[in-house]
């Protein structure tokens, strides 16, 4: 992974800003939907071994609800919006007044509501990045899964898999006021996308 070996501190800061802008806008969208303030943690940007990525949400076997988007355009990549099943239920209740009938499974209506919420949040995440960088980025339709974190997240690592055993993760956590709803955005741009992101933001890339 020569491309990322000498990522200086300052390039990591640029990627943090990318996470900040994307997740910041998504948090604002969520805050409007819920009519509640949403706090956001400082994005964590790190080159992480594959195993460590699932650890960020509680381990490879942890059951999570994930909305997955493939980002297409100038800078392709993978975007995940990840919630615990409990947080997803709370979010549904707050937002749509959907009563929780079962803790472990989701009805078709809940599923489609989550998909729509995911769509709105990912849309604001990606469109704010596209505006900021003047690059074209479009999320695909959302795909939902309730399953083991390792099984879900490995889908976002395939592009990096061809180059090495770690991936550059832009991880942003948001928290609703009293910590009742907590979720995470994982953005994993394809390895080729970094040069374009940096060049669009006027950061020189010399890696020869």
């Amino acid at each position: 992974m020569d491309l990322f070996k000498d990522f200086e501190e300052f390039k990591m800061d640029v990627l943090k800003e990318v996470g900040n802008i994307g997740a910041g806008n998504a948090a604002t969208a969520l805050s409007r939907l819920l009519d509640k303030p949403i706090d956001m943690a400082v994005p964590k940007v790190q080159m992480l071994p594959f195993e460590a990525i699932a650890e960020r949400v509680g381990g490879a076997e942890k059951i999570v609800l994930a909305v997955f988007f493939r980002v297409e355009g100038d800078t392709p990549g993978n975007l995940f919006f990840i919630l615990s099943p409990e947080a997803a239920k709370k979010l549904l209740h707050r937002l749509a007044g959907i009563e929780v009938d079962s803790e472990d499974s989701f009805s078709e209506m809940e599923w489609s509501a989550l998909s729509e919420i995911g769509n709105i949040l990912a849309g604001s995440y990606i469109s704010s990045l596209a505006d900021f960088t003047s690059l074209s980025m479009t999320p695909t339709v959302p795909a939902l899964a309730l399953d083991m974190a390792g099984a879900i997240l490995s889908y976002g690592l395939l592009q990096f898999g061809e180059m090495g055993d770690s991936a550059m993760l832009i991880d942003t956590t948001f928290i609703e006021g009293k910590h009742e709803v907590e979720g995470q955005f994982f953005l994993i741009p394809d390895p080729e996308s970094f040069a374009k992101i940096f060049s669009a933001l006027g950061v020189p890339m010399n890696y020869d």
Partner: protein
Amino acid sequence: MIDEQHIVKVSMADLNVIRGQGLIRTTGLGSCVGVTLFDPMLKVAGLAHVMLPSSEIAREGALNIAKYADTAVPELVRKLLALGAMQSRLVAKMAGGSQMFTFAGTGDSMRIGPRNVESCKTMLLQLGIPLLAEDTGGNYGRTIELDCETGILFIRSVQMGIKEL
């Protein structure tokens, strides 16, 4: 599945072997495939957590041979033979290779699960190792563990509970 046993853990894009008593396991298989090999006479077993079908697409400097089906399966055989296993006695079982997400107009990378499965089968065929059982495909994740004493493969998933092969 008894706790407090000798457990060898295999992480993503990795492989390992176990001898004697105990379990060899890997967690959270999605599109990845867990291939297990077992020599019932000697009671040695191996497991590879394969992520991609072919090393031909690799663009990395130092190739991680445990990551690709076409390199991981032969390497696993080599490791077992080094422990005294006989290739003619080896039997295989595998699980994983699911398609977690489906989109309209899906690209090739979305079909990675089935391609991993195919590639593992091709390798087993080439090496003359019979595939005794498999639990592949679907759209869900799996955690698997092979009992090195019996050669039984336990598969756990959120939707299906525990399955034995």
